[in-house]
């Protein structure tokens, strides 16, 4: 079986007729960790939404393959069932819906089967412990009144429970204190294995210190302007994005 998981070829994306992404080409193989770095407003989140299939973002050209299958016309829930997960930068609050019952609904929807309740609860508890989440959160309403850090942990918890093939983390580290970043990255490390892939979107490099990064892409003005190894992180840390903006 092929190693190739996601293949994005010359994708351009518009929102309300304004072009945001210009001919993005990106390939992610199984087991790889990719990082997308760039200043605010570069179009990084748009790339995440495009892969997940947000209907507001219109793909005007290019192709998008997941495990060699064209997924461009597929709805977000179909993509989720194929194994794509997006951790939202600002997850929506859903009043009246308990976190645990939502995660159960979600895991059965994605796996199209139903896990035994006890097994589910055990897994949920283990993952919550890993993320230093109080068990009381299981009966909290989904994201309602959660602090920034709690929301991010709840997203990573869902990632661990769904165990996707490709997880896209959109600014999962932003607004977190040092300890929370450590907790989140230990959760992320737990997810990684030789088959699972990761695309980390960030403008901050703290979370990357603990993770085995394979590729780094720099996005500026809706274009990928540089691709390389972890050495690019060092370059961004010392020189910022300026050198890339002038390319």
């Amino acid at each position, binding site marked *: 079986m092929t190693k190739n998981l996601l293949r994005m070829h010359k994708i351009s994306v518009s929102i309300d007729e304004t072009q945001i992404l210009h001919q993005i080409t990106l390939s992610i193989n199984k087991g790889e960790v990719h990082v997308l770095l760039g200043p605010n407003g570069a179009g990084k989140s748009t790339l995440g939404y495009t892969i*997940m*299939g*947000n*209907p*507001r973002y219109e793909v005007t050209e290019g192709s998008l393959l997941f495990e060699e299958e064209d997924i461009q016309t597929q*709805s*977000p*829930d179909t*993509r*989720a*069932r194929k194994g794509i*997960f*997006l951790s*939202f930068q600002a*997850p*929506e609050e*859903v*009043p*009246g*819906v308990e976190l645990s019952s*939502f995660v159960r*609904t*979600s*895991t059965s*929807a*994605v796996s199209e089967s139903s896990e035994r309740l006890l097994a589910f609860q055990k897994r949920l508890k283990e993952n919550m412990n890993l993320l230093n989440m109080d068990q009381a959160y299981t009966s909290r*309403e*989904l994201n309602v009144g959660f602090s920034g850090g709690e929301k991010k942990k709840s997203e990573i918890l*869902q990632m661990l429970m*769904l165990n996707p093939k490709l997880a896209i983390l959109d600014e999962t580290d932003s607004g977190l204190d040092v300890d929370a970043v450590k907790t989140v990255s230990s959760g992320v490390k737990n997810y990684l294995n030789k088959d699972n892939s990761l695309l980390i979107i960030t403008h901050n490099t703290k979370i990357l210190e603990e993770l085995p990064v394979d590729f780094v892409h720099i996005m500026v003005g809706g274009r990928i302007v540089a691709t390389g190894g972890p050495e690019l992180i060092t370059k961004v840390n010392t020189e910022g994005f300026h050198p890339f903006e002038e390319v």
Partner: protein
Amino acid sequence: MKEKKKTYVDDVKRSIYDETCNLEPDFTVNAGLTADIVEQISKEKNDPDWMLLHRLASLELYNKLNVPNWGPSLDGLSMENIVTYVRPNTKMSDSWEEVPDGIKNTFERLGIPQAERTSLAGVGAQYDSEVVYHNVREEVAALGVIYTDIESALHGPYSEMIKQHFMKLITPRDHKFAALHGAVWSGGSFVYVPPGVKVDIPLQSYFRLNAAGAGQFEHTLIIVDKGADLHFIEGCSAPKYNVASLHAGVVELFVEEDAKLRYSTIENWSKNMYNLNTKRAHVKRGGHIEWVSGSFGSHVSCLYPMSILAGEKASAEFTGITFAGEGQSLDTGVKIVHSAPNTYSNISSKSISKNGGASTFRSSVRVLPKATGCKSSVSCESLMLDDISRSDTIPVIDVQTDQVDIGHEAKIGRISDQAIFYLMSRGLREADARALIVNGFANPIAKELPLEYAVEMNHLISLEMEGTIG
């Protein structure tokens, strides 16, 4: 053109409500409203003299008062076409065995006898204009709890108590339909709970209007004496006809010192119904009234239960949900009068509108000058499921003293595309994502409804998907 999926929230499954029964009534007055008709009703019902006088005085007021013009249109309602009194062909009984099959089957489909066996302390069932069944568990009766129809009470040992309270809290002067009620009322329930008696399981009265083009005008009078405790459930439904029907009941609740009353209503009238109901509670020192209300049916509803907090530390709580679909204008709300110091009220309301339905929430909180140190909090949230539905909030706050703590919060929203996208990214189909949001919205209120109704409400918010080309 791209194919778009459209989702909608399903209507209430009406089939069990729409079954009609073709049992011929025993007696029916002509349509319309005249002194002759009122006298005829009074005679048929064997009223005491004071009641006949009350009816005629109410009729006079009815003829003088104008149709309220501040709310939904009542143009489709014309009194000349409404039959105000339809007596079913049976006598009231305390045994379902004696209730004629057609009527009994109706209540069985609605689950009333079953609920009585499992979870109620007593049941009253009204069919058109008269109560056909009334029964209360022996152990509850042994505590001195009275639960009967108003007609029996008018002639029994509680006749004086009825006379002292009947339409004293809601007088026929209140508005045109209160006057109408005063003239043609029939049926309903009387409950008296003696001091200190706590009734652990609820009593339930169910009102069924079977006749076409008729009116139902039941009167509910409840007195919960000092330190006593009661939960009363009221359910209503009717089959759908093409002609307008009218419901103008009156509910008068007297909550004495340190007593507690929870009054739950599930209204599921058919969509040809004008539901113009008036409810009011008078709460004395340390007493507590709790309203739980679910409004799903009717063509037009005007319903604003009022709580008068008359004694120090009296309190009121209201939890309600309204669901307006196609062709429905549901105008609901709450009135609170803080007329004593340190009184407390808490109002929480939710409404859902879809398919062009309109829901309006009116709240009125009045704090009289002597009501210092009182607290009131009003919260209403609306969810519109499409662009053609309406939702309005009309709060009135009238505070006549400084030392109060009043809060008001209103939110009107739609389901955001981003929220749908978020839930779909977790594997939920679009319809399921919508259903989850609507259910979550209604959930805090549904929890307060009696169990069998909560199940029905969740069922009603199950969604279906429809493919259209957009």
